[in-house]
């Protein structure tokens, strides 16, 4: 299918929060852009028909935080495999974090990534430049040149910007470019040696814990610095109730502070490290599934109180949007003891299914979930994506909100099979992903195992 064809998505529940729209309608895509949404008056165009009866038709999901690993770590993921995983997960645009090798702190690397994405990518790719050279925290990267190369934000993700003054300068300098600083908030002195959330599970397993205060101390500092500088601060992967509370207060005071949460921090607690997704509970003996390295992630999965606070924050808008923090790793980096294992979850392909749990449990209305995956991140980026308005790029995600499926990591198209959800039953499955009018992923019902 080429981009100059007409696609008519018929009879789906069209949800486009950017125009406050939720209705059964046909969506017509022509020449790579949205031609219109037709409700009572059905579309008359001829072209490829996609029957979306019983399905949800949404603007394409946007992921502001993923690790495509190329260049440098192609054994974990490539731009090709990572963007295919994005398409399978319903994402039509992703932002690549700069912790590649070399670090994306110069125009040459940004150019390479964007060019590789154009030639091999399955979805749109935007680049995030490093805050500091080599993400080492010693010297600001050439942010102006990076901005000219097209980066949409700056981050040293994987590492915090630890230096107080360095963070202040970054927030200040970037105001001239109008781009946000995304900080991975982790006070390293408090998290040192920690493997998971500090609490009863870490004590049960004899693992060193990371207290909530390791994140919150830096969030508090960053909010103060955002106030001092007038800079745009974005908190990556918020994980604690305290972070949500501080961001809420900062917003009430009119500061330019935003935050994101990942599907895993919104749906899983630290019990996941016990294995069997924690079903055994606090009082049961450990099973051989304990020390589940696929549940090891930074920041760590927190207590259920923190999970609830994040969901509440997502519902009321304190948590601005969802980002996957897709962090693929080679199998050998997870087949190890818990302390040796790499941090990270391969999240793109399970994101929707996980997040739909919140909808099915009545914690989040479907249009709000879609807003946090589409209009909200598009708004943050200031790009004309995340909507099905007439004339917008034809980026569309079609999903079945009620389809049940069992996660099987061997079916992942991502090279990273590292998911704590292997074997979990999820409800909500992507049926088709359309990028710029081209179908980049289509669920193959005939060959599906579930």
């Amino acid at each position: 299918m080429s981009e100059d064809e007409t696609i008519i998505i018929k009879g789906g529940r069209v949800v486009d929060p950017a125009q406050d729209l939720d209705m059964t309608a046909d969506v017509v895509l022509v020449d790579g852009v949205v031609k219109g949404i037709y409700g009572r008056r059905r579309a008359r165009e001829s072209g490829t028909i996609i029957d979306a009866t019983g399905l949800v038709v949404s603007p394409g999901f946007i992921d502001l935080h993923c690790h495509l690993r190329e260049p440098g770590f192609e054994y974990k993921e490539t731009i090709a495999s990572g963007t295919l995983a994005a398409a399978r997960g319903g994402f039509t645009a992703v932002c690549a974090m700069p912790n590649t090798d070399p670090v994306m702190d110069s125009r040459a690397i940004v150019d390479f990534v964007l060019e590789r994405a154009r030639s091999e990518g399955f979805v749109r790719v935007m680049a995030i430049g490093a805050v500091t050279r080599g993400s080492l925290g010693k010297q600001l990267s050439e942010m102006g040149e990076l901005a000219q190369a097209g980066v949409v934000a700056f981050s040293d993700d994987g590492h915090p910007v630890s230096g107080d003054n360095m963070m202040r300068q970054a927030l200040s300098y970037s105001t001239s470019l109008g781009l946000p600083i995304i900080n991975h908030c982790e006070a390293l002195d408090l998290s040192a040696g920690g493997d998971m959330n500090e609490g009863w599970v870490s004590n049960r397993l004899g693992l060193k814990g990371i207290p909530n205060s390791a994140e919150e101390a830096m969030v508090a500092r960053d909010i103060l610095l955002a106030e001092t500088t007038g800079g745009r601060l974005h908190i990556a992967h918020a994980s604690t109730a305290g972070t949500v509370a501080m961001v809420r207060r900062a917003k009430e005071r009119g500061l330019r502070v935003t935050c994101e949460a990942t599907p895993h921090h919104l749906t899983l607690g630290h019990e996941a490290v016990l294995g069997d997704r924690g079903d055994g509970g606090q009082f049961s003996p450990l099973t051989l599934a304990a020390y589940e390295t696929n549940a090891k992630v930074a920041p760590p999965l927190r207590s259920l109180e923190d999970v609830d606070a994040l969901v509440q924050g997502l519902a009321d808008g304190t948590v601005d949007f969802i980002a996957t923090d897709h962090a693929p790793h080679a199998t050998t980096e997870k087949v190890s003891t818990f302390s040796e294992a790499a941090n990270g979850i391969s999240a793109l392909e399970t994101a929707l299914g996980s997040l739909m749990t919140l909808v099915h449990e009545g914690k989040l209305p479907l249009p709000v979930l879609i807003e946090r995956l589409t209009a909200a991140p598009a708004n943050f980026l200031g790009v004309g994506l995340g909507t099905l308005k007439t004339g917008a790029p034809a980026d569309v995600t079609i999903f079945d909100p009620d389809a049940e499926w069992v996660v099987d990591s061997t079916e992942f198209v991502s090279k990273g099979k590292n998911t704590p959800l292997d074997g979990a039953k999820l409800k909500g499955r992507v049926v088709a992903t359309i990028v710029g009018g081209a179908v980049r992923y289509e669920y193959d019902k005939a060959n599906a195992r579930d």
Partner: protein
Amino acid sequence: MTQARPVDEDSDLAQASSPTLSRRHHILDLDDFTRDEITEVLDNTAAMAGVLKRDIRKVPALRGKTVITLFHEASTRTRVSFEQAGKVLSADVINVTGSGTSVEKGESLYNTALTLQAMNADIIVVRHPDAGAPHFLARHLNSSVINAGDGTHAHPTQALLDLYTLRSRLGRLEGLKVAIVGDILHSRVARSNLWGLTAVGAEVVLCGPPTLMPIDLVNGERTAEGHPFAAIRTETSVERAIEGADAVMVLRIQSERQRGGFMPSLREYSRMYGINAKRMELAKPEALVMHPGPMNEGVEIDSEVAHGARSVIEEQVANGVAVRMALMFGIITPAPVSARSRN
């Protein structure tokens, strides 16, 4: 020359029946040991202690079986104890340590373990600085895995030898008041003893500076109904902890705790928490002093107490061999067909 007697004719081993333990494939912690199973292990330990008292300390129970000890952390007493236990039972015992092996060349634990399994190890005894390393091996290997200490998680054979020492000296376990004093946060010995002592109905008091206490034991997370440790008392005053105790388990204080900011100095630790003769006066007159070793005399325990009349520290070491014999014998002895497949 005295011949080793066959197992079924051996008076000591004939008493060592392991209906529960023999259903078990691994020994990873005591969290899934019931009181009955602990009693079974301790009874069998007594039988093994009988073997150790003979002139010819050799029985053919594990003849033709291979035990590999895989120690990725320095240890003398535990490794030698397992080695001796295996040898008395006639197993072929092979010792592998972290240095001078492919571990130094960066071979992963996974690959090392596969290699050992390929050598037909029936039992792999593992000590590792990472918590959960034995669970990791047990998940991936067919051999039986015995945890000889994993990070700050568990040390089940130490806890069982502590229980055996308590029972053989005091005649019972239920209702005993045991104070565990020291670095609870980093202590695998304390964690496994918590499970063991709780299972047999002893009363446990944990004592140490607040910086060395697991946060969930002091912040109320364990007050949930049905929590196995709901009845455990925590104390920051060593005097209150020891008062009326039947036994005091003293934990090793590592000097790096000082650099980690857990305590101002070893000197202050010794003054605030060190076990000395004066403090022992608060315990019951017949109270035992225990220590898993190695000791820092003059820090967590005074030499006078460590080598005094109430000290059973050397006895703990001797009992370790018998306990490990009972465990290896138990898990290798075939279970009744109807009672297999657990863990």
